């Protein structure tokens, strides 16, 4: 149980960090890569929640589709680079919004018990997906690494 919480905390921190990096990066390509890593982190959170099919679909659609399309679309046009966000304003606004959204949840006392794992997709895919999830993730990681490598090569070629 403690290991579950540590693993979840690592992926949760990674998700928040990658979302925050979008404020910091000036290059659109870097912003798109940070978004892709955010989707990967959320996919890992879905796995921790016991939803393997949703984790795989998140990787396929959001990382493999949306992020890739964003990277290719921004790379094939002129890559714009300017300071697009006020980091301090974004940080303050994020904290205020988080407080406003989360305080009513905490103060209601309605949440906080143990999470009974009732997978959405248990009836349809449990036996098939949970034993075969690793090859999907290995393939997705390999393909994602290839796309990052191609971006690096493209940037070197453009210089």
């Amino acid at each position: 149980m403690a290991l579950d919480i540590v693993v979840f905390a690592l992926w949760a921190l990674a998700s928040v960090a990658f979302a925050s990096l979008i404020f910091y990066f000036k290059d659109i390509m870097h912003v798109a890569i940070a978004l892709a890593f955010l989707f990967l982190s959320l996919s890992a959170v879905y796995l921790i929640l016991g939803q393997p099919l949703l984790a795989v679909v998140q990787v396929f659609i959001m990382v493999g589709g949306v992020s890739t399309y964003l990277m290719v679309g921004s790379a094939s046009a002129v890559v714009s680079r300017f300071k697009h966000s006020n980091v301090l304003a974004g940080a303050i606004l994020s904290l205020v919004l988080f407080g406003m959204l989360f305080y009513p949840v905490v103060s209601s006392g309605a949440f906080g018990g143990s999470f009974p794992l009732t997978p959405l997709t248990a009836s349809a895919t449990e036996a098939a997906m949970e034993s075969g999830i690793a090859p999907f993730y290995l393939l997705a990681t390999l393909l994602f690494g290839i796309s990052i490598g191609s971006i690096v090569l493209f940037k070197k070629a453009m210089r």
Partner: protein
Amino acid sequence: MIQLYMLALAFAVFSIGIAGVASTRHFLVMVVFVEVALSAAALLAVLFFDVSGSSYAIPLLFSIWGIAAAEVMALIAFYRYMVKEEVSLDVSKLSRFRG
């Protein structure tokens, strides 16, 4: 019942997405922050599935993902057009665009 720390993650990512949409000036970065907020909403849908006990979460999640993908496709087309026509990507300057 839902663990509070999982709800905190979903709300934190959603807050970052909304704060980003409000504070950024770049057209495409606004789209990216909307994607962040949509993915946080999908995570919240998964968390609340157990509370409602319904099976409507799967169609809802696929709808969210489909909308996110379609939105990015349409807005990348706008982005390419704006770059080609040399329209500023700074949304604060768009009001100065004269047709």
